[in-house]
């Protein structure tokens, strides 16, 4: 499955870096619908699997939230490119989340982000994380965007 954004553009958009840069591919952007789909591949080598847990690697829920939040940044950048181009700081404000199934090494995590409301300084999105077409987590995320001139 091809990424519609090169790695360089993902890295240009997301301020996070190793070991906290979690979006591997951008699969789909539908500007009219306000929707993006991204992908994170899970490998045994993830730093968070080392301790969580040593004999039973499970992706921590808080990391799943971070992954959905990063997909939300991709969504913001796709829908408000003129603001994203200024390299703003993104602030997580509020998360309402539900976890349905554990995520393990080898899983491909598809993140679907749907805009509820988005302005230049903040956004509210509905995000879901799926593995093999099944929802493993859902969240409603509110975030702020601040450009420091």
């Amino acid at each position, binding site marked *: 499955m091809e990424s519609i954004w090169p790695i360089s553009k993902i890295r240009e958009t997301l301020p996070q870096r190793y070991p906290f840069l979690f979006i591997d591919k951008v699969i789909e952007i539908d500007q009219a619908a306000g929707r993006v789909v991204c992908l994170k591949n899970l490998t045994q080598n993830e730093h968070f699997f080392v301790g969580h847990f040593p004999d039973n690697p499970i992706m921590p829920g808080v990391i799943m939230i971070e992954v959905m939040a990063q997909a939300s940044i991709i969504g913001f950048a796709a829908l408000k490119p003129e603001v994203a181009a200024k390299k703003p700081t993104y602030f997580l404000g509020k998360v309402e989340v539900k976890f349905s199934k554990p995520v393990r090494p080898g899983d491909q995590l598809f993140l679907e982000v749907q805009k*509820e409301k988005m*302005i230049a*300084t903040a956004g*509210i999105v509905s995000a879901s994380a799926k593995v093999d077409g099944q929802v493993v987590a859902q969240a409603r995320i*509110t975030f*702020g965007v601040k450009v420091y001139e």
Partner: protein
Amino acid sequence: MDNGISIDEMKREVRKIIAEIAEIPEADIKDESLFFEELGIDSMMALEIVTAIEKRYRIHLPEEQIPNIRSISKVCELLKGLLTASTQNA
């Protein structure tokens, strides 16, 4: 009265929305209380309030108007205008 709702009822509903989102007692939210300066509402809470109001009244608040949403009175003034315009266009 707009769309069957009085201004007083509109203010009550908006106050309730703000109280729930900002976690402030309704009694502390006066008609002229300034959201940012007096109630400590930040831009993210403001967007949640806008979204809740849009859902409640089935309207769209233009992004350029959002900075004008600074108090309950201002919100209701804007809502009144938008609801009146949508009634006229119906």
